[in-house]
């Protein structure tokens, strides 16, 4: 990373760390916690996107994570910190069920398969009453303490999830700039060519899937502890944890490092704000606006906010225009290319 | 009749044509030659309007059609038979031909045009109900040319007509091109078979690296050192 961006990053982290110093408003802190949960899940989702893989089923891993920690804690009295680690393992194992679709299906079809996968898990969670309490769900006990990840105020939650999000971002950056990242990005562009260069893409994609699922599971587990109530409709919710992270990623900039972070930071409060502003006036109006905004944002900035802003920045700085600056961390995958390269490779 | 002036074109960010110019007259065969990846097919794509020209102009019968849509160009009589035939494989031979005549579908003469194509290619009549994808290479090329003829072309551009065909079939196709030209159509062929191409052409252009290098009569080109160098190597 360049020095300049290092300074920026440190500054932002410091600012994030100071949020509770400036406000003790529990609601604002709560929104911040939700933002960070979404940052985490979106960043995890985006690790697959490095390889040009679109998942619409991350709710599956999120839900597995939530249920793992909840079942272990409530039914078997396992410490939730251990539960979070266990959640990463179970989510990773669960993701292996998608291994074959991952390697055989391309683009939108893999996305549809993941969607069906997450929906199936939701239905099974409803059905498997002895394990999951069915639709009634599981409520974590109110006993408080750091060891039990349960507090009366938001601040501890905030710092825990901030740390988790930073770790997730760190892993994502590390992957992006490591061997794995180079290979994933190359595979996103042209899977066949990258295989001809000696990269074992099946193994690579599987690794990305497992890492992505494990991270998502960790945030699912944290969310379970934070929201107390774990039920299939919420924790396996397709709109909340499959579509929304993907949406954050697309809007921020799929396959870039900064994109998903920006996406989650913009979209989460936007949803909150729309709901609080329009609630009670007309049913559903907030989602109408959300839908319109979504279509417009996706249409106007197909590469995501990060690259959109970059273009804008370049436009207002004409002296920078003609130099062919290299796409760095935030450079987009060419939207035309990322999934269109479907002729390559057998299935 | 068709005049292409100083066109350049890009695929995405990559430049494919730098400066191509050519002109063809009312009838006869014109060959567009050049080594692989020189920009021959790209030139045809720009002429037929599926790839926009970044600069330069295309005029047809004195009308500037640089920004016209492919349909408009087909309606004017500028018809492109693409490389690799590009038939609709799951449609029958006859359906492929009928779609070729899409632009003229309203003049109630589609039937007679179809008959004329069948006269020219009796084999296609036998196979009219077969899926085009199941034909042999030569038959497919006939369908492709037939599909082009259904649009009543004034200029017919055929890209790599002889690609992958047996020598005998290639020979037939070239004499066919001459026949078509004799009926008052200008045929612009992109070819690798230089000898064959120049043998049937009266004019030719050579493109190299996206630039028109040489233009001249077939005779001149046949004798040009550049042609020999590019193709024959000795």
């Amino acid at each position, binding site marked *: 990373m360049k020095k300049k961006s290092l300074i920026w990053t440190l500054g932002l982290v410091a600012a994030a760390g100071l949020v509770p110093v400036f406000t003790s408003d529990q609601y604002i802190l709560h929104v911040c916690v939700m933002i960070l949960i979404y940052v985490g899940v979106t960043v995890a989702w985006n690790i697959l996107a490095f390889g040009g893989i679109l998942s*619409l089923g991350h709710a599956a891993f999120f839900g597995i994570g939530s249920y793992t920690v909840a079942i272990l804690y409530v039914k078997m009295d396992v410490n939730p910190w251990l539960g979070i680690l266990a959640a990463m393992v179970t989510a990773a194992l669960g993701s292996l069920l998608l291994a074959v679709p991952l390697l055989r299906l391309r683009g939108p079809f893999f996305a549809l398969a993941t969607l069906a996968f997450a929906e199936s898990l939701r239905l099974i969670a409803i059905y498997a009453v002895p394990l999951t309490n069915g639709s009634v769900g599981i409520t974590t006990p109110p006993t408080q303490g750091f060891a039990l990840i349960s507090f009366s105020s938001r601040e501890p939650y905030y710092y825990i999830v901030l740390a988790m999000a930073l770790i997730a971002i760190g892993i994502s950056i590390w992957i992006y700039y490591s061997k794995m990242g180079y290979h994933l990005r190359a595979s996103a562009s042209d899977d066949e060519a990258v295989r001809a260069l000696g990269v074992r893409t099946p193994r690579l994609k599987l690794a990305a899937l497992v890492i992505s699922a494990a991270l998502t599971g960790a945030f699912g587990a944290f969310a379970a502890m934070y929201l107390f109530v774990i039920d299939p409709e919420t924790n396996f919710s397709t709109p909340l944890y499959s579509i929304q992270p993907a949406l954050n990623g697309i809007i921020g900039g799929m396959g870039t490092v900064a994109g998903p972070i920006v996406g989650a930071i913009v979209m989460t409060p936007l949803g909150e704000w729309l709901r609080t502003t329009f609630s009670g006036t007309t049913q559903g109006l907030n*989602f*109408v606006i959300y839908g319109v905004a*979504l279509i417009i944002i996706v249409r106007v900035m*197909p590469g995501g906010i990060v690259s959109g802003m970059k273009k804008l920045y370049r436009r207002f700085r004409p002296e920078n225009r003609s130099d062919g600056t290299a796409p760095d961390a935030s450079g987009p995958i060419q*939207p035309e290319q*990322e*999934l269109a390269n479907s002729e390559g490779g057998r299935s | 009749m068709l005049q292409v002036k100083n066109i350049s074109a890009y695929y995405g960010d990559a430049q494919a044509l730098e400066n191509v110019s050519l002109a063809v007259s009312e009838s006869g065969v014109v060959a567009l030659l050049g080594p692989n990846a020189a920009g021959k097919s790209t030139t045809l794509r720009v002429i037929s309007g599926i790839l926009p020209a970044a600069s330069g102009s295309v005029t047809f019968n004195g009308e500037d059609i640089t920004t016209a849509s*492919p349909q408009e160009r*087909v309606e004017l009589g500028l018809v492109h038979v693409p490389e690799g035939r590009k038939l609709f494989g799951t449609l029958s031979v006859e359906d492929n031909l009928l779609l070729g005549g899409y632009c003229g579908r309203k003049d109630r003469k589609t039937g007679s045009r179809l008959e004329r194509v069948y006269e020219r290619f009796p084999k296609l009549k036998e196979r009219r109900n077969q899926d085009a994808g199941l034909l042999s290479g030569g038959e497919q090329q006939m369908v492709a040319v037939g599909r082009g003829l259904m649009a009543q072309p004034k200029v017919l551009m055929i890209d790599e007509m002889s690609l992958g065909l047996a020598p005998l079939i290639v020979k037939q196709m070239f004499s066919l091109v001459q026949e078509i030209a004799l009926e008052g159509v200008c045929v612009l062929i992109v070819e690798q078979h230089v000898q064959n191409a120049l043998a049937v052409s009266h004019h030719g252009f050579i493109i190299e690296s996206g630039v028109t290098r040489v233009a001249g009569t077939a005779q001149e080109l046949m004798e040009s050192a550049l042609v020999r160098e590019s193709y024959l190597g000795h």
Partner: protein
Amino acid sequence: MNLLVQTLVAGLLLGGVYALIAVGLNLIFGVVKIINFAHGELVMIAMYATFWMWTAWSLSPYISIFIITPLMFGFGVLLQRFILQPMQNSSPTIKIFVTLGLSVLLQNLALVLFGGQYRSTTFPWAEQNFSVLGVTATYGRITAFLVAIALVIALFYLMKKTLTGKVLRALAEDRETAGLIGIPVKKYYLVAMGLGTAMAAIAGVLIGPFQSVFPLAGAHFTLLAFVVVVLGGLGNMAGSLIGGLFLGAVETLAGTYIDPALQQVAVFAVFIIVLLVRPQGIFGGSARNAEVGLK
């Protein structure tokens, strides 16, 4: 035995409607190459229209179908022209998210306009029972099934025999070449989207008499229709028909003999298995599957 027969009949009757919805999706998917996540919402809109025409003007669904279908055709054309067309060359991902946004928009627009109530078109004729050898079904369901099958066959005929159909098939296979030989591609995209929407709308009208409508009534159909399309093969109308019937049967059989709570799981299981074993669909699809990521 009677239970099995009754289950199968119920499944097939249902499957006919699935087929009709799926055929519309197949057309849009195959020709326009868009994964339309708002397809179920098109069904939902038609269901609302049916309900309102029945309550406001006492128009029987079997009459209002002739008003709603052309209107929805127009709606599909407008969607294509003003929302989907401008992003025709975007990546599949972007298209997915625009149609997802559309789906959120339409669902909640329905909520804003009509509220969350469940509305039912009660058309008495449709609710009468028809019974053969102890196997029963209502006229409404039988009509829906028959009309759906007839329309799928009609569409099949249209695609095979008419110039429009041939153009659409050509577009599904290779839009660049279609454009090259002088076919106004965008115009036919409008036609395909209009037809696809009309098919979904007809399905919506037909199920109106026996299914309540509410803003989320269509959501369920979208994924289901995709399952049918994948099952039957992309671009393969006959495949969609058989796939729809098959899926209807799978759903009810799984419900009756395994557990109703696992009906949908069975459907998704079939979907994933088919994707893995024969991604081109059980009955094969058109050549250009690769363009939408299926190979």
